[in-house]
């Protein structure tokens, strides 16, 4: 709820520069989202849910300037055969993108079909986000629903032959992008979604995923090496019976990143595996906020988050497993760990369990500490020099998260990016 005039002023200032379509199938849900924001306000530092991350730069009227980053690395997943969809500063790029057609799927752009009277995405767009507003409000996601300028709407009818790759390019120092994607995976189908790149100076992204019974979605994301970008992303996933949702995110650098994932296991025997590896050096604030709701029997969920921090970097993990009454035989696991490579970095965590069913096995663990000196000495005693030994142990630490990626090719690529990062960031 909006608690004071200052908060109201911040919200009004932010909303004043934004436009939304007044007609078309998405208009009603956009209005509802706006009404929601006007009721609850935008995140403020006093909100419990923003205890560890200052939302100021995410809610201010315009994007803080972010210098462009000259990335000399080859494109991530460049070798993977994929359907490329490219957004430059939040604007679809026809030239760089492939033709939006692939057997088994129907793919539209929100900006292109938004003014139609009806669309299949109507049943998902803003609807899963709405479900995710309780018990904790997520005003930045509602803001996204209300004001998204574009995004892709994918209806996966049959398993496509290759992954769909969303590529975000940051080309303008003050760009402020809002994209909203909807993915519906029909019964028995499976799809892989890749996301890469820094997107914009400030990026607000929302992805809603509806998984029908027996369907699968694999999501692998690399958020780009851009040093100064800021991002607030949300994923909302609703899982049908026996469906599988797997998401992995690699974050290297970025001034501020808040990745929220809200997953509802609403069909029996469904499974959600959510993982993240982040490596931060210097001015870097990374926040993983994960909320997993078990609302059906015999489901399993895993949250595996690893953070390596140095030179004053901050890592945040807020993770929750909520088991609703009746969600018996739930298997819930959550681990959050940070490796602090020096004394200036910090790790802040709130790993929660909220459980209303008795026949469950839920656990969480959280650790924070420096590199294991015993192991370091052992490696050095075998002739491996300190820097390389540190890298080896760091990579070993991150591995548990990377192993959550099912595709070996994709996992290998993530490992090689991590190794490259570690090599670049070796202390002098």
């Amino acid at each position, binding site marked *: 709820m909006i608690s004071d005039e200052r908060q109201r002023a911040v919200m009004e200032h932010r909303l004043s520069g934004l436009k939304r379509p007044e007609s078309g199938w998405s208009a009603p849900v956009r209005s509802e989202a706006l009404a929601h924001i006007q009721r609850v306000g935008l995140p403020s530092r006093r909100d*419990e849910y923003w205890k560890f991350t200052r939302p100021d730069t995410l809610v201010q009227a315009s994007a803080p300037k972010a210098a462009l980053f000259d990335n000399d690395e080859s494109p991530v997943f460049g070798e993977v055969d994929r359907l490329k969809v490219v957004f430059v500063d939040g604007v679809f790029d026809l030239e760089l993108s492939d033709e939006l057609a692939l057997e088994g799927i129907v793919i539209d752009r929100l900006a292109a079909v938004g003014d139609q009277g009806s669309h299949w995405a109507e049943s998902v767009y803003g609807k899963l986000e709405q479900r995710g507003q309780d018990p904790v409000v997520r005003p930045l996601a509602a803001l996204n629903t209300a004001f998204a300028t574009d995004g892709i709407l994918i209806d996966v009818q049959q398993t496509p032959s290759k992954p769909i790759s969303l590529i975000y390019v940051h080309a303008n120092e003050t760009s402020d992008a809002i994209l909203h994607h909807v993915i519906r995976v029909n019964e028995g189908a499976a799809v892989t979604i890749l996301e890469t790149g820094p997107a914009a100076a400030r990026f607000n992204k929302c992805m809603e995923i509806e998984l029908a019974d027996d369907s699968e979605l694999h999501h692998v994301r690399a958020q780009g090496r851009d040093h100064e970008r800021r991002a607030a992303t949300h994923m909302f996933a609703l899982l049908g019976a026996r469906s599988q949702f797997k998401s992995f995110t690699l974050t290297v650098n970025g001034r501020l990143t808040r990745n929220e994932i809200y997953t509802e296991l609403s069909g029996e025997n469904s499974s959600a595996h959510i993982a993240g590896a982040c490596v931060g050096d210097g001015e870097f604030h990374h926040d993983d906020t994960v909320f997993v709701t078990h609302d059906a029997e015999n489901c399993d969920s895993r949250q595996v988050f690893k953070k390596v921090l140095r030179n004053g970097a901050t890592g945040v993990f807020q993770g929750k497993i909520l088991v609703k*009454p*009746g969600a*018996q035989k739930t298997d819930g696991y959550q681990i959050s760990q*940070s490796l*602090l*490579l*020096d*004394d200036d*970095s*910090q*790790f*802040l*965590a*709130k*790993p*929660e*369990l*909220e*459980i*209303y*069913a*008795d*026949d*469950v*096995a*839920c*656990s*969480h*663990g*959280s*650790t*924070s*500490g*420096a590199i294991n000196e015993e192991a370091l000495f052992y490696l050095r005693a075998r002739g491996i020099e300190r820097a390389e030994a540190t890298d080896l142990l760091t990579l070993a630490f991150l591995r548990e998260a990377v192993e959550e990626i099912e595709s070996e090719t994709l996992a290998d690529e993530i490992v090689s990016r991590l190794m490259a990062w570690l090599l670049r960031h070796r202390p002098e």
Partner: protein
Amino acid sequence: MTISSVTEVMDDERSVKDGVDQETVDAVQKISSYKHGWETDIETEYAPKGLTPDIVRLISEKNEEPDWMTEWRLQAYERWLQMKEPDWAMVDYPDIDFQDQYYYARPKSMETKPKSLDEVDPKLLETYEKLGIPLKEQLILAGVEVDEEDIANRKVAVDAVFDSVSVGTTFQSELKKAGVIFCPISEAVRDHPELVRKYLGSVVPMSDNFYATLNSAVYSDGSFVYVPPNVRCPMELSTYFRINAENTGQFERTLIIADKGSYVSYLEGCTAPQRDTSQLHAAVVELIAEEDAEIKYSTVQNWYPGDEYGKGGIYNFVTKRADCRGDRAKVMWTQVETGSAVTWKYPSCVLRGDDSQGEFYSIAITNNYQQADTGTKMVHLGRNTKSRIVSKGISAGKAQNTYRGLVSMHPKAKNSRNYTQCDSLLIGDQCGAHTVPYIEVKNNSSRVEHEATTSKVDDDQLFYCRARGMDEEEAVALVVNGFCKEVLQELPMEFAMEAQQLVAISLEGSVG
């Protein structure tokens, strides 16, 4: 009997599980018994209902306090008026009308203070006798079987607090010989103002939180302990709190100071009669451990929990905090929380001295409609500080049980360690068990480890016990006692037995 080997014994576990579950559900319907729910029929004088500056002054006057204490209370009262009741805990209860309570209730017979235990109203003495806490110096706490020889070494000094006043304190002269001060805090304010002024409010500031501020304004009595440098307190100290009067809140204040190199073990017990309306208990406990001092503080909290429909019971809103002020100071909190309708309590340690240590061992059992939101804060400020948290939550009936904790490693707390283990057990599918830890690590030489699990009572273990002839309730009590063992073994012997029985009683009829 080894319960752990049970899985190897069982062949057809599936059918067994189903069998046990059904009986479990039936048993949940049964009512648990509260054995301390009786009332002492005694004439009581009350201060007028409600809270005003005049009531604050009246309490101060009844305690014959010096002006500085009265002023302190009034200041707290003013602050309290500005504060809001906290709403972040996972507990839900009707609004409390703070003007519809008595803030002071004293047995009429206590109007003139008895000079010795012999002069205390026999009805009051009987009350404690019945509770198993005889206010006699030749006896140790009831129910403890020890060798003849051992009795001399197992003395327990008791301060008995009845509603708003202390009715008597045993072994005072013997303690005095050792230099230990153990007396009602009302007496300490008069007799040891230099100590009280130095330490009161120094760990839990007057306006720390809503309930602590309320307590600062209206606390009526409680215990005071001072252990001088290098003295090992010759016996266990304990305070037994009894709420008897209706519509009355109990606001006690405990202050324990362990000076350099000293040691003290302190126990606290509490009960109340069975009533339909809820009653408020808002205590403040402050512990100060100076250099090389050690304080062991154990609680068996057995306030009336309300009936099986959630009617009545104590609202237990307590602020407990320890300050390990000196290097190598050590504080250990052990709590067994079985009573109260609502519990809001986080015994904490500020680890200020280098190499200081804090420990927190907790069992919280909630049944029927009980709600508990409890845990600890370990704030590491000094170097090489260590903390350990072991929390066991058991939830049955329609109860909600939350562990809430904070482990904070400040930038200067180099080389510090924390280990936290939170386990929750659910008995029946109508209850809830929650874990809300906050972890803040701001240096890299410190190591923090947190683990938590939630599961149900192991059906295999229950069946194994039953196959050996135990009935379902015995089996549950045994298995739950096993689950709690890590904490139970930290209790002083006097309390360990009572606590074990309590674990069984609290779960009566909640089997599963």
